């Protein structure tokens, strides 16, 4: 147990150190709101290759020079977590590691299990602390106007997980580590079926499959970029001054990327006459595409003078496909050939 506690402490400190040494916090806080693990690996000069791995989620090797392999057979956020785990092995100076699903998932609840390799516990802790440091929780809570108490709501934890690019369960256990809630609550929350949360967020719309993620987006997310997958759904909820003649309308949508599948309104105030309503426009991804969804709130007889606009950038290409990370191909392919 002493080893376990020391491993947790060391991995957490090292995750903080890499954030500081590589000036990650400033980039993320003022940027996309998620930590780019792939570019961090690349900036360290470590080759990163995505490929189909037989029975493995990822691997870290040291010879002929350090490198990271990540499976193409898992969703985006699982790929990111695996990459962060392998980055942990590298940053913490570990020996090579082959990481299969069983061993990584077994550690997912972040609990000490007898027989766990300390190196693996360190890498796993590093991954969680690297991808969701406390300051990143605070950054998103500030943007969404959530308090720690609001994070007792699993739908909010799910939305946080999507924004930082990790799995729901990893977010739950990381928040428990930050004492946002206790481990008993975390265990109950982690047991909730994601489909149930997605159903709740879709407010009656039933997709063909619940495989994709459900992003609930509001004016607090204006100009954010969604990094999601080709099955994802967006529920865009915007206050509409409908009692004053203003309606939100879609100004620009790439019909091959997104389709509007539901359009509804909810009361903001059930009693008053002439107040705003909450407009809820749900879109479903149609393809692996990048683009922008733009809406404008205007009076239909004065379209040229919108009182408000809203834009959302999205990248729905999903999981990384077979190949080198970005421009690493030239750089490392030749180095490996030489070494061979």
């Amino acid at each position, binding site marked *: 147990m002493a080893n376990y506690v020391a491993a947790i402490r060391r991995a957490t400190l090292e995750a903080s150190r890499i954030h500081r040494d590589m000036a990650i916090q400033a980039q993320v806080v003022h940027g996309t709101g998620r930590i780019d693990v792939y570019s961090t690996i690349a900036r360290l000069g470590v080759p990163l290759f995505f490929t189909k791995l037989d029975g493995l989620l990822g691997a870290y090797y040291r010879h002929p020079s350090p490198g990271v392999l990540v499976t193409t057979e898992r969703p985006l956020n699982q790929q990111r977590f695996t990459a962060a785990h392998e980055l942990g092995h590298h940053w913490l100076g570990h020996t090579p590691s082959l990481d299969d699903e069983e061993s990584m998932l077994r550690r997912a609840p972040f609990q000490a299990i007898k027989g766990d390799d300390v190196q693996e516990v360190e890498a796993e802790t590093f991954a969680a602390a690297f991808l969701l440091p406390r300051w990143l929780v605070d950054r998103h809570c500030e943007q969404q106007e959530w308090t720690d108490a609001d994070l007792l709501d699993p739908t909010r934890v799910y939305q946080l997980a999507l924004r930082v690019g990790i799995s729901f369960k990893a977010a739950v256990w990381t928040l428990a580590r930050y004492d946002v809630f206790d481990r008993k609550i975390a265990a109950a929350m982690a047991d909730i079926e994601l489909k149930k949360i997605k159903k709740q967020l879709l407010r009656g719309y039933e997709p063909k499959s619940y495989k994709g993620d459900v992003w609930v987006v509001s004016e607090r997310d204006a100009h954010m970029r969604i990094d999601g997958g080709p099955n994802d759904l967006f529920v865009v909820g915007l206050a509409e*001054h*409908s*009692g*004053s*003649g*203003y*309606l939100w309308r879609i100004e620009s949508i790439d019909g091959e990327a997104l389709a509007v599948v539901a359009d509804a*309104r*909810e*009361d903001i*105030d059930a*009693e*008053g*006459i*002439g*107040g*705003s*309503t909450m407009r809820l426009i749900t879109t479903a991804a149609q393809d692996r595409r990048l683009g922008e969804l733009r809406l404008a709130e205007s*009076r*239909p*007889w*004065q379209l040229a003078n919108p*009182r408000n606009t809203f834009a959302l950038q999205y990248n729905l290409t999903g999981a990384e496909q077979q190949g080198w990370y970005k421009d690493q191909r030239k750089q490392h392919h030749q180095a490996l050939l030489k070494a061979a």
Partner: protein
Amino acid sequence: MPIAPTVDLRNQFGPVRDQGDRPTCLAFAASDAHAALRGPWTALSCEFAFYHAQRRAGRPPTKGALLSHMLRTIKDDGQPIEDAWPYLNALPADLDNYGPPSSVTVFRRNGEACPKAVDEVLAHLDDGRPVMVLMMISDSFYLPAVDGAIRAPAGKLPDPKRRHAVVAVGHGIADGHRAILIRNSWGVGWGLQGYGWLTEPFLAPRLTAVALLTEDLDVPTQNLAA
């Protein structure tokens, strides 16, 4: 082809006003009905009416008003002319700075909710009295046809979440149906210079309340309730 009014009270009113993006339609409907009854037309301060109605209801000025509190306000708090507290296009950033002038001359008038029926609206219009009409609105309300008519959208149910208040100022016949001429508070760019015709098939299932301002209560008095 224009819809010919059988009864038309528009000459009791000044130019249509614009509430902007604030939730003040009910205050505009009450104020304009009140000003028309006083005649000749001098616009009354709907900011004053809205402020007091919200204060009576314990509701913030960022939300819509309630009919019962608006009628009570016109009766008990009254309202001054528009120039005494002109309409604010936007609330002050600090709501502590939102309040009426300290001393103004106000006009009071009794009011009452009436049975919720198109017949009721027509009967009061026939008597020469403008009527406050509260209703649910649908997409077709936002863009009246060239003749100013707002027709029932085919296959669409009333939307109880979108609620609006206007003043009924006349009636006629459109498409063979009874139609009520309304004065909106969305500026002169909406409909026919700010007026539109609600056809009975549109209005009847969407009508939520009807109210009337009745007798003048007293001579102008000072209101010190700032």
